[in-house]
């Protein structure tokens, strides 16, 4: 499972870099405000760059959110029976995988489109296609991460049957907190 571990590490790395870029952007924003208020010299094209960084920062959060299974689901029906719960979890993960495959595919289509049409930013004509290629790559990274959750969820159905207590290796390796705390920010 070293490949899987590496993919997860990559997801974590992407989120850290993406959000660190956001912190850097915030510092740049402060410098821009200072320049504007104190010296009356705004940086031409600053917004062009900041718009691009924001796209990447937001996209960089997706693989990590899957790796830690942070998307809110209402685990209501599963309370009835552990196996029903496991089956539903599995189906939920499959649907999620399908959604991320579609998003990654269509982002690639979009990246090609902005490349061929030569789309640029508003003021300083930065070509936007590299940003969308990177964004596509980040969503492609979501696919193996989510696939690993699907596999783990499928194992849960089987293993839980042999071991009704619900403790098994798959659950332990997949880092899926079953009674997970709700993540912050869901409100």
């Amino acid at each position, binding site marked *: 499972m070293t490949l899987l571990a590496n993919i997860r590490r990559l997801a*974590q790395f992407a989120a850290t870099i993406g959000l660190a870029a956001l*912190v850097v952007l915030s510092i740049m924003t402060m410098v821009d405000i200072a320049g504007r208020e104190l010296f009356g010299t705004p940086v031409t094209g600053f917004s062009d760059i900041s718009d691009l960084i924001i796209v990447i920062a937001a996209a960089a959060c*997706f693989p990590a959110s899957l790796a830690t299974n942070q998307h809110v689901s209402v685990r209501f029906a599963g309370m009835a029976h552990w196996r029903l719960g496991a089956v*539903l979890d599995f189906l939920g993960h499959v649907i999620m995988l399908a*959604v991320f495959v579609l998003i990654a595919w269509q982002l690639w289509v979009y990246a090609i489109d902005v490349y061929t049409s030569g789309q640029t930013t508003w003021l300083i004509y930065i070509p936007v296609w590299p940003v969308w290629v990177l964004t596509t790559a980040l969503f492609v990274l979501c696919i193996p991460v989510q696939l690993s959750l699907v596999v783990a969820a499928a194992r849960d159905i089987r293993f839980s049957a042999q071991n009704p207590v619900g403790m098994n290796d798959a659950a332990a390796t997949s880092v899926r907190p079953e009674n997970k705390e709700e993540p*912050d*920010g869901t409100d």
Partner: protein
Amino acid sequence: MPRRHPCAPRTRRSPMAPIEVGLVGLACLIAAILLHVPVGIAMAAVGAAGYVMLTGNLSGMVSLFGTETVNMLTNQDFAVVMFFLLMGGFAGAAGISADIYRVANTWIGHYRGGLSMATILGCAGFGAIAGSSIATAATMAKIALPEMEKRNYALSLCTGTLAAGGTLGSLIPPSIIMVIYAVQVEQFVIDLFLAAIIPGLLSVALFVLAIRVQLLISPHLAGAGERIAWRGRMRETGRAWAPIGIIVVVMGGIYSGFFTVNEGAAVGLVLTLIFAVARKSLTRATFTETLFGSAGSIAMLYMIVIGANIFGYFLTLSHMPSEVATWVQGLDIPPLAIVFIIIAMYVLLGCVFDALAGMVLTLPFVVPIISGLGYDLVWWGIVNVMVIEIGMITPPVGINVFVIKGLRQDIPLGTIFRGITPFLIANVVALLLVVLFPQLATWLPDLLR
């Protein structure tokens, strides 16, 4: 296979009328959410399936996953949630919540139930930095719960205070819910922040009142702490200069027009980060942990809105929202009664459903009705946030309650919900006041517009 023509499938429409498909889709969505599919994913998947049912346009459906993801990733107004979430994360890591709580305690800790009231004020203060209820409830619980238990406060009062106080995290600006509402309904988020100030303070006052009244009835629930001398109060308050300063700079800067909401959030993020580093409370580990934890929330919020927007195409094509709005406007009922019916429906929905998802999902139905009746959409945004807060603390599904339960598995859910009751009453009173006197919300934004 020849390329599917956008016009061609129209002759092969589904045998059901659009409205019927819409109803089935809505039912499927609710089923999918109750059957463990994450909310955003469920909206995207059911919306896409329904879209194909209505139009037969498979390639168009597939393209929506790209279009709506691109739209949200490039949406500058929405991007502010990232800054506010990170800012809240760093503020928690820096111990700002503890600072605010301590200050509040030195001022009112000597009253009976003083720690409980200090918790409410602490929640409000931390809520002025953090944008989410859950972060507020979780952060404050770690600090205030042990203190209250040390003084033998009844567990129901402790946990009720924290679950209810946590909701102030989204009513006191900045607020993630308000950002989402503003983006989806195309209102200025600054107007919503301004509009929330008076209802937020009103809620704080009513929560404190709820504690006082409760202790008049059952004094055994909590004792009183010792009175702190003025000098001690000033010293403790002086020590908390940083969080107070950050709130003043960020929110003051935004309200006074010194910088935009996005710039204010960026400044706040940097200031809290600097403060955390200066205090040496931010290690490399807590830094990456904060980033990583925020990443999960950020992606989930984006996914909810992406999903809601894909579902929106389906809803529009089903003609359900417009038919419902026309039907409601045709009813011979006073507008205020319609408002109350919608609120009652939201409260019921909030009992069993993720309250935020409930709002995002129903906005296409509710907004045309509310604006059609001539009401202000900024005011409705505040009402919506207050209703969502109620949903977060009502049984059986109350996210804030689960947060407390998650931290302390030994406390029975029943105890927490029992402790919430007085605050729930306070919440309902606050909501009634804002509904009956919309000026409470609209006065400030109108004044500064």
